[in-house]
């Protein structure tokens, strides 16, 4: 077993309205960042865990997403593993 650090990105599903992202987009426009197109806002989680391999760490993290960290109805996620 070794220590891994898994970075998990949870984003609202692209087809759903993301009012928080829109509010940030409007604020950026108000500040003069006219080049800004769409903004979407999600969550970033950093999970430290013990696993036998990077593949196992990623697998465990995906299970955590399916059960708790992401809502399968409204959110998508991806995981990135690195040695801690």
């Amino acid at each position: 077993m070794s220590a891994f650090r898994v970075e998990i990105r949870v984003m609202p599903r692209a087809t759903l309205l993301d009012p928080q992202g829109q509010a940030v987009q409007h604020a950026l426009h108000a500040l003069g960042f006219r080049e800004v197109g769409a903004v979407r806002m999600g969550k970033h989680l950093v999970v430290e865990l013990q696993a036998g391999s990077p593949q196992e760490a990623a697998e465990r993290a995906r299970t955590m997403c399916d059960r708790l960290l992401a809502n399968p109805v409204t959110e998508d996620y991806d995981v990135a593993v690195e040695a801690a």
Partner: protein
Amino acid sequence: MRRVAVVVFPGSNCDADTLDAARAAGSDAYYVWHRDTDLRQADAVVLPGGFSYGDYLRSGAIARFSPVLQAVAAHARAGGAVLGICNGFQILCEAGLLPGALMRNARLKFLSRPVRVRVEATDTPFTHLYERGEELTVPIAHGDGRYVADAETAALLEANGQVVWRYVGDNPNGSTNDIAGICNGGRNVVGVMPHPERRNARVLGGQDGARVFLSMEARNATQHAGDMRAVDGRHLRV
């Protein structure tokens, strides 16, 4: 007299109002703590509004894994009546006892005001004393009230008559198909965003929510539903 368990999570804040509304309707209502695993022979379970576990991660996401939810899920699977109000609705969706999910209001603001809803389904344990098509004024108080479901699920809800309450006039939060409340396929689990317990007496500005609790009390009761008129003098139409 029906036994009604009002579940209390850390962060629930409508538990006392809900208990009071159930008692006013004649029920033997009592609290069940989130760590309890025994619903104490409840006929019906109510998950009240509030901010369980601080709404951390997502509204209702942590409450879903509390010990009491295992008992609530078993009660629901056995056909028992379960009502989720506001945060309780969010918890029922997170737990998979109702389809869909509740997301941040479309205009982001936390909304606390009365809204108009139309009763769309009266064949549930919590709405059978209403008339179909009747319009009610009931308060909302939520930041995450936008009901979302994929197109297929939404179509199924409509086809099966699982939309229980629908916003009329103004959709406050951008919910799919103006949905304010739904039930499951078995029709024993109901979730609503508006707060019926805040409108169950004239002193609260109206009593449009009272029949949610009177329906629950009259469900399978030995007396005829017509007798419910006598309960606390609050019931207008049977």
